[in-house]
């Protein structure tokens, strides 16, 4: 059964140096508050897994938390590049960053396999692209029934998954709605999990389209109102598109970036 604990305590207990951490939320419900807490606690050598690294991983990479990035689309959506990610790959700043690069379909299926207790997933994907030549976790596989050649990716089973949701009750049952991305799969694929929520409530009212992660499938829940900003939590906030546009300048220059992090996160 999930226990409700303060965010700093949850991160200290669940996120360890050198481990793999999946922080999901597809544009919506990105767990910024938890990521910032990981940065403040000075975690190092993490394998960061996330379909769309977004500004959150740009910040974590720039602050030196990551040794490796597993991802499928590393841009600032609708704006352009993630400059800290680019600087790490092109110039090894602040540290070399190993990358394991996929497509969205590939990572999504790897999470599904992880959540399903399977060693790998099969998809129609990657065929003819240059990705398999550079990513060891993409392999051809022959269908044993039809002989058709398809693609396999190994399951992703992160040491810890971190997601943000709209609300939870005091027993740690979590409710989230809107764009649900791969959060459910990431939590169920992980060995440990942390869910930050906008609000703790006495009773979860049913909501059309909402999914519920039962408390017994989660390790810790922490209250973090506004914890998805500058992404958003449907029903609580809207995406701060102005901030995503402004990040292009903040993230572009190393000193501007570090100064911003010192002022707003550390």
């Amino acid at each position, binding site marked *: 059964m999930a226990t409700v604990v303060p965010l700093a305590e949850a991160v200290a207990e669940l996120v360890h140096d050198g481990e793999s951490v999946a922080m999901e939320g*597809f*544009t*919506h419900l990105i767990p910024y508050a938890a990521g910032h807490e990981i940065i403040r606690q000075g975690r190092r050598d993490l394998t960061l897994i996330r*379909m*769309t690294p977004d500004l959150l991983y740009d910040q974590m990479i720039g602050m030196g938390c990551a040794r490796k990035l597993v*991802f*499928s*689309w*590393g*841009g600032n*959506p*609708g*704006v352009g*590049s*993630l400059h800290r*990610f*680019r600087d790490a*790959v*092109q110039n090894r700043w602040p540290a070399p960053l190993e990358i394991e*690069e*996929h*497509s*969205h*379909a590939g990572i*999504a*299926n790897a*999470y*599904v396999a992880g959540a399903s207790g399977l060693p790998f997933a099969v*998809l*129609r*994907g*990657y*065929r*003819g*692209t*240059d*990705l398999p030549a*550079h990513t060891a976790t993409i392999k051809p596989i022959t269908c044993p029934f039809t002989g*058709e*050649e*398809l693609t396999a990716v190994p399951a992703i089973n992160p040491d810890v998954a971190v997601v943000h949701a709209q609300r939870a009750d005091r027993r740690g049952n979590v409710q989230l709605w*809107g*764009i*649900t*991305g*791969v959060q*459910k*799969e990431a939590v169920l694929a992980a060995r440990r999990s942390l869910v930050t929520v906008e609000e703790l409530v006495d009773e979860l009212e049913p909501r059309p*389209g909402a999914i519920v992660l039962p408390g017994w499938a989660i390790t810790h829940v922490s209250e973090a109102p506004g914890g998805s900003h500058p992404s*958003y939590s*449907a029903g609580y906030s*809207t*995406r701060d*598109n102005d901030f*995503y*546009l402004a990040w292009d300048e903040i993230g572009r220059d190393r000193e501007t970036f570090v100064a911003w992090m010192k002022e707003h996160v550390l």
Partner: protein
Amino acid sequence: MTTDLGTDYTSDEMMTVAAARRLRDGQSCFVGIGLPSTAANLARRTNAPDLVLIYESGTIGAKPDLPPLSIGDGVLAETADAVVSVPEIFNYWLQPGRIDVGFLGAAQIDRFGNINTTVIGPYDDPKVRLPGAGGAPEIAASCREVTVIVRQSRRAFVERVDFVTSVGFGSGPGDRERLGLRGSGPRTVITDLGILEPDPVGCELVLTHLHPGVTLDQARAATGWELAAAPDLRETEPPTPDELAALRRLTGR
């Protein structure tokens, strides 16, 4: 406003309008962010009011008032017919070939319509690290057809892409079949200079339309391979006042 083409619209506006016209009413369209999203949203306001917009965030049938900045803005979920998870949008909706048109952008595109959005230069020591694949490889593989919108220049239109992120026709005829890609591949490439379509036999992208005021020499100068023109090379119809007004309402101009 007068532009360097001497027209009352820009070359980007011509490109977006030409792209929107290619989408047919009632089709389902898997929309990439940026130029494709603007054009698909324009089509919904002009020639294709019942176009079904599908974004990789899992929003099916989104009807945003304005083009979203990201593929997951709240307005997409609020206005969608259905919101599904990311594994579901790729596995149940895209992979079986249910979606008519994949609408993609590109950093580089080559003569066989292969797209690069990954790196410029060598993969292990890139000159420019681009965002990467996202949903594009499987969109390019599985949609019934693909439309690409990209500004034409020698930097973008190259003989051979530095990295194949999404397959067009590979190295030429027969490659898509050999690879088991079930969609028909890129049928239309719309640029700020004109429109290219694959040669039905050789699969190479050939210029079929020039936008008003653009010459064949200009298009060739902006292409990194020996660009062939279709025998019946035509001029694109300029944007109508209604199309321009609808586009400018969308882009806030």
